[in-house]
């Protein structure tokens, strides 16, 4: 016997705003963010954990939106690429990606930026190895990764200059 799936009421804080939504158990966090809230900066590439394009921050940690049920995020703090820039002013990581040519088609960019932002929060001066570790789950078909590496290093050093 298949029990009838039932919708659940879910409270999420997304980019600082609280949303109350009724979601089906099988809806993933990426689906809810894209289809219900309209945050299409969350990209879905593979849907099975292999590309990193669906990365969002939950409680400040990078996770894959395509492999997380929305119902498992009850009352959690979710951040997407749309919540990064404030009043049109890019974050240091976004600015560095732009300056260093780390953005081409842009499909991998939201995930790359969010994972890099989380990395710099816990390691303000990461080594190249630490950057590789933080971004190992992110595929980019365009840039060849060098520019992305340069951008993260640049974001770290420009933040250090400001300190």
């Amino acid at each position, binding site marked *: 016997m298949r029990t009838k799936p039932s919708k659940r009421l879910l409270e999420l804080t997304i980019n600082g705003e609280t949303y109350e939504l009724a979601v089906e158990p099988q809806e993933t966090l990426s689906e809810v963010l894209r289809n219900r809230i309209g945050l299409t900066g969350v990209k879905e590439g593979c849907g099975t*954990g292999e590309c990193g394009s669906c*990365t969002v921050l939950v409680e400040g*940690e990078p996770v894959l939106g395509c*492999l997380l049920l929305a119902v498992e995020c009850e009352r959690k703090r979710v951040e997407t690429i749309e919540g990064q820039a404030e009043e049109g002013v890019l974050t240091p990581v976004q600015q560095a990606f732009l300056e260093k040519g780390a953005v081409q088609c842009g499909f991998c960019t939201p995930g790359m930026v969010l994972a890099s932002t989380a990395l710099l929060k816990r390691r303000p001066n990461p080594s190249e190895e630490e950057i590789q570790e933080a971004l190992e789950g992110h595929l980019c078909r365009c840039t060849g990764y060098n520019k992305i590496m340069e951008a993260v290093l640049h974001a770290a050093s420009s933040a250090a200059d400001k300190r």
Partner: protein
Amino acid sequence: MYLPRFAFEKPTSLKEASSLLTEKAVKSTLLAGGTDLLPRMKYGVADPERLISLKGLGVSAPKVLPEGDLILDGASTLASVALSPEVAENAPLLAAAAGRVATREIRNVATLAGNLCQDTRCLYFNQRHTFQFVEPCFKRGGDFCYFIPKGKKCWAVYMSDTAPALICLGAKIQVEGDGAGALLDLEALYSGDSLHPLTIGSDTIISGIRVPPTGGTRGWAFSKLTLREGMEFGALNIAVLLETGKDPGTCTRARIAVGAVSPAPVRALKSEGLLVGGPFSPALLAEAARQVAEEVTVIPHHGYSKWYLTRALEVEALNALTRAVNQLTGGR
């Protein structure tokens, strides 16, 4: 890629979770991090009617008992295991293995018990027969194998990185459900059958993992062979734990476990026997590494040939043994 429909429960106690799992009327499966289960559901390899989330139970932090046992909650994330000071201090081999699973995004949600209970895989695992192949293979309830078409069974291999490390450490798992609260040797969790790789029923919950203290001085190494580093599943992995007594050159206990090459992690017992007692010499390590490659029968998988995996196993074994011995003798 969408998930099929299912019902969802989030119990708040182990007891409630157990009783939901054992309800016969509805086919239930445990959901921990979901990083193994949800892709399988998307591929159509698993189709539970109801998921029982473990997220409502909370997770206790790693702790060390007075007698020295390290106790880990089954629901600990791999990131927390890899970064825990208690684990680094008491079981650095496990910390290293947990840190090599997949990617940070996955390790942030994937759990230790989920890693131990993951399904076996093969190159054809994620192919949906509806658009790519006409016949369902054994994994999907059919009676055909794409990998060995004339074969009579499934040849998928078991990929966990933490299982070989925990087996070397002599870990025990605490199981709830049938035989509630019992401690089982982790090695006994694996059946060696690709289709049903675990010996516990689907209504059993692994609530904890217990790692006994190492006697004497220990040297350890974890190696995982991948072609591109990063997030890949291993072509093979190997964990080594060596112990010595007063004399740092003489081995009193040796453990070698190899993963990702067969339906269950495999101990290299003969090689372990060669190492115990003997002073570590380059010749002994080379002999022990040769023995590992000889006694562990590898299944070719994911495009790696049997010849390649066997040669690579000897190389990785020598590398891991050398690193473990260097730790013991202070060399690098």
